[in-house]
């Protein structure tokens, strides 16, 4: 039996906000695949739970009138991966979430939980920050929106006040419509593993030039990050093999990997430079371009 001390079940977003307000020690539990592991290990800081597992209004994938794609945070990874809307318009997200855990975990774990955990290895985070996704947050004082990239504050820290919850993830049409992408997860196993490095690239081409590139890495810094220095340098350049090697040479300045038991900093840097070229090249090919 898990050893939590209090448990309250929320049936709606408003109820969840109220319940959080009533208990300053409360933590949200959604899909449970991270929280129940922490509880199994007896971590006392998660003794008080507000359960949002069955809030129906947070389970959806939809398109609004402007054709922006909006994902409810309680959507499971399987639902994200198999969504026709996602597969058609942002296949890079589908590709990324299919590398998470195994089928059972993907059936239970939620995309919102992955983001709100705030870990640098969150595999759904890099495609979403590459797509300039925004998050909608609701709390006691109403709702607010912010770029997902600035939602990540540090390891296991996100920009949520205690009484707030994530209610939607939005990818606006202009951020996906003319873009193609690619994702690669470097890990020791092909499934049931945590990223040593995760990499997402999305790009927009015009004739033989790279009109726009967004390059994002997981586990390359305390939070999932974008390589904006590199992006600025290569925007508008002709697509050549030299462009790819220049990207590889430039990315180390954008990242801050560290040594952990999983991999040494030097090894991570090696993976980052290699993946930068390969993933960008594949994104270019996916966009119908050629490298020559």
């Amino acid at each position, binding site marked *: *039996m898990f050893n939590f001390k209090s448990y309250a079940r929320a049936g709606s977003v408003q109820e969840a906000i109220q319940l959080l307000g009533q208990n300053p020690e409360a933590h949200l539990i959604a899909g449970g695949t991270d929280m129940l592991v922490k509880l*199994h290990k007896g971590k006392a800081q998660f003794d008080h739970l507000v359960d949002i597992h069955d809030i129906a209004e947070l389970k959806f994938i939809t398109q609004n009138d402007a054709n922006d794609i909006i994902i409810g945070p309680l959507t499971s990874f399987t639902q994200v991966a198999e969504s026709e809307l996602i597969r058609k318009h942002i296949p890079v997200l589908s590709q990324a979430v299919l590398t998470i855990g195994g089928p*059972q975990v993907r059936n239970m774990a939620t995309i919102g939980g992955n983001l709100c955990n705030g870990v640098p290895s969150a595999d759904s985070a890099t495609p979403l920050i590459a797509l300039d996704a925004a998050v909608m947050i609701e709390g006691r004082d109403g709702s607010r929106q912010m770029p997902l990239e600035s939602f990540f504050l540090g390891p296991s820290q996100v920009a949520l006040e205690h009484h707030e919850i994530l209610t939607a993830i939005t990818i606006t049409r202009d951020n996906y419509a003319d873009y193609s992408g690619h994702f690669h997860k470097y890990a020791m196993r092909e499934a049931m593993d945590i990223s040593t490095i995760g990499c997402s690239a999305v790009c927009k081409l015009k004739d033989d030039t790279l009109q726009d590139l967004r390059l994002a890495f997981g586990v390359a810094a305390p939070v999932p990050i974008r390589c904006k220095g590199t992006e600025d340098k290569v925007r508008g350049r002709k697509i050549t093999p030299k462009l790819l090697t220049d990207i590889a040479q430039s990315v180390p300045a954008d990242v801050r990997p560290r040594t952990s038991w999983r991999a040494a900093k030097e090894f991570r840097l090696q993976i980052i430079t290699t993946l930068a070229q390969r993933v960008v090249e594949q994104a270019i090919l996916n966009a119908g371009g050629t490298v020559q």
Partner: protein
Amino acid sequence: MNRHITFTINGKKKEIQIDVRQSLLEVLREKLGLLSVKQGCAVGECGACTVLLDDVPIDACLYLAVWADGRSIRTVEGESREDKLSRVQQTFVDEGAVQCGICTPGFVMAATSFVEKHKQQKVSRYEIRRGLAGNLCRCTGYDTIVTAVQKCLDEDDA
């Protein structure tokens, strides 16, 4: 922290009292005596506790029993009919996809859902491996298990 929940287990409706701190794994084993549901790692890595929740495989160790309220659960105990094994079960036997047996119920449930989901589809061995990636086996080397699943799908074709 007690609650009453109602769910369908292997085709039968049940109303039981649970503690909200209990996992579905504990309730299935300890309250309902469904001992096919094994606790291996208890942290969602090994798949020994795989059950089907509304026909979708989940790890019962990382699922609060209270969440099962109103849903339908299948375990290996409900797969055979009148002493006749299900096709997936029989194929596991025929292909020698069983050795020590501890992972087998979880594998059978994951494989059952995979076969149901991929009916009439051409599926590679690699895709079967990915579909069963949430289950660990320390005996078979997986090859016989993948063959068993492949055979179930091939028979579908015929």
